[in-house]
């Protein structure tokens, strides 16, 4: 009979092996799925995992990995802090939207003035917008004990309505023939989050994501606050004895994740997306939750997980248009990848033992 035995320490070896194992299993299961849909499984898998990195047009897709991955990593880093401490911000999508709105709002307010201060102001406004949106669940939690999962989630819907109202009203491009959507910030030099090195995909959002990874790493490993976060997650009672102030922790974790999500939204609206539009948000806030867990809430893990997610998105799109795979099959494939990653994770923390049923 199979039996799980808890390891005294998570296995170092398996920490590194399980993600690879999961990817391999997903490729096998996914290949079976694609074959069942009447597509060549080998071609589908290579299209998803190989083409974007080393295929004919990799020069275009590699930078795209950064563009797609950066907001995921940026948001997931913020979320991971809270998740470690048992503070559940599920509404990063809303904070992302608000950050984009405040950031773009500042930029549009200055139009058509050109000045170098505009972009830094937009960055500040974006972070502030996300921070404020995240402060709502934080303060309600502290003041009334309201559950932050639901408040932050409900605020996503509110933010989406606000986004639609802005795209159709206040921020609508006056030269846009009455169509929804703001001016294109990419055509407004002072507000444009342009590529730092043309063709590299490196924009300020990517830089911010890198900084966030380093910052989070230092915080968690070298700083007393990081210690408090980890302690609260592992042993809440002990944390209280150790003098952790739970209220401060809630404010810090929700505030940081909100600000980072807001930043991600701001960099996206000023760069890759270019404008505030009704459907500006594409689910980065939710996908980032998955990225945070795939990366085991570890900064470096999150960086890798974000890039892996981005790869399945871009490769998935390629498989759609090259092989005619339905979008749903790609979604299913991503779901499988997550399942297997989560499932094999058990090997990191537990040992599987064969044990004979005891003879009575």
């Amino acid at each position, binding site marked *: 009979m199979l039996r*799980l*035995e*808890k390891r005294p320490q998570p296995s170092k070896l398996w920490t590194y092996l399980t993600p690879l194992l999961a990817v391999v299993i997903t490729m096998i299961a996914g290949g079976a799925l694609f074959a069942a*849909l009447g597509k060549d499984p080998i071609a589908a898998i290579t299209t998803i995992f190989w083409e974007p990195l080393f295929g004919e047009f990799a020069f275009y897709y590699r930078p795209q990995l950064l563009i797609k991955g950066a907001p995921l990593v940026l948001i997931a880093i913020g979320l991971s802090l809270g*998740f470690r401490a048992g503070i*559940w911000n*599920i509404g990063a999508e809303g904070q992302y939207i608000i950050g984009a709105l405040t950031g773009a709002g500042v930029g549009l307010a200055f139009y058509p003035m050109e000045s170098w201060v505009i972009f830094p102001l937009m960055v500040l406004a974006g972070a502030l917008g996300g921070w404020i949106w995240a402060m709502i669940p934080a303060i*309600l939690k502290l003041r*009334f*004990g*309201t*559950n932050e*999962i*639901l*408040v932050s*989630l*409900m*605020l996503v*819907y*509110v933010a989406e*309505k*606000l986004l*639609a*109202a802005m795209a*159709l*009203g206040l921020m609508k491009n006056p030269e846009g023939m009455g169509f929804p959507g703001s001016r294109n910030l990419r055509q407004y030099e002072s507000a444009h989050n342009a590529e730092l090195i043309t063709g590299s995909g490196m924009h300020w959002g990517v830089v911010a994501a890198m900084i966030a990874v380093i910052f989070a790493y230092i915080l968690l490993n070298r700083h007393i606050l990081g210690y408090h976060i980890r302690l609260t997650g592992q042993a809440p009672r002990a944390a209280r004895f150790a003098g952790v102030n739970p209220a401060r922790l809630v404010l810090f974790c929700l505030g940081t994740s909100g600000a980072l999500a807001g930043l991600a939204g701001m960099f996206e609206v000023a760069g890759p997306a270019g404008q505030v539009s009704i459907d500006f948000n594409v689910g980065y806030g*939710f996908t980032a*939750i*998955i990225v945070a*867990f*795939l990366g085991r809430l570890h900064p470096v893990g999150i960086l890798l997980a974000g890039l892996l997610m981005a790869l399945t998105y871009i490769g998935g799109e390629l498989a759609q248009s090259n092989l005619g795979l*339905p*979008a*749903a*099959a*790609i*979604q*299913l*494939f*991503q*779901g*499988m990848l*997550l*399942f297997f990653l*989560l*499932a*094999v*994770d*058990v090997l990191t*923390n*537990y040992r599987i033992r064969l044990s004979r049923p005891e003879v009575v």
Partner: protein
Amino acid sequence: MEFGSINPVLLLASLMVAATPILLAALGELVVERAGVLNLGVEGMMIIGAICGFAVAVNTGSPVLGFVAAAGGGALLSLLFALLTQFALANQVASGLALTLFGLGLSALLGQGYVGIKPPPIGKLDIPLLSDIPYLGPVLFAHDVMVYVGLGLVVAVWAVLKYTRLGLVLRAVGENHDAAHALGYKVVRIRVLAILFGGACAGLGGAYISLIRVPQWTEGMTAGAGWIALALVVFASWKAGRVLLGAWIFGGVTVLQLNLQAAGIAIPVEYLSMSPYLITILVLVIMSADRSRAPASLGRIFHASQ
């Protein structure tokens, strides 16, 4: 302002219909969470229920079989979640989100042949005499069967949790799984059963949308109802009766804001459409004054290491 053209009787009647899918799903999730498990995959299980129910109802011509299949489909998907969280001891939040992603993809694939088809109709349960009672009749006694199934389920969940041994064990597992284990209860088995029940309920809720409320099949048609159901459970402080209240409030606000618009009340529409969510938050705040807490073991991983 003129509210004259809004008929409160009709409003209440359509409120009960609008509330039913989230009510069914939320009741299932309530049982799951009472057992100490947080399954964020409600949306995924609902949409799987929606397509399974639709496909079977169309192919067999029987809505009843459709609902049975929906419950089965939802439960089957939730079994994946159970395997992950109860046997592979994976994180519940991440597993639930993965379940939603997986469910949305799978349903879209399964549903490819079912776009633009009309499902077999489901008769209203017009209880003679009772449905003729002025005012009360149309509100209470002129709905499809599933509305009553939902109401019956509220009573059943409430009674089982409160008065039966099964309910007691379930709550014990949810409050302190280590103690429950020490007492000899099968923690994992009970949780798996609760998860399956939750999946079946979510499946029914989804099928209600695709077979009765809309009725048709389209990709992504649950459009966030699963998340609302999750909110309802917390909103209700894990009490069955309050889930019903919450579902009615949410359904009511949704229906009312559309009615206000149709009646030409001059409220900015874009803000009006935020109102269901803002009111939910408001009620959450008021409700959290009540100190009844979440099940103590909610979301925690259980491993019998002794």
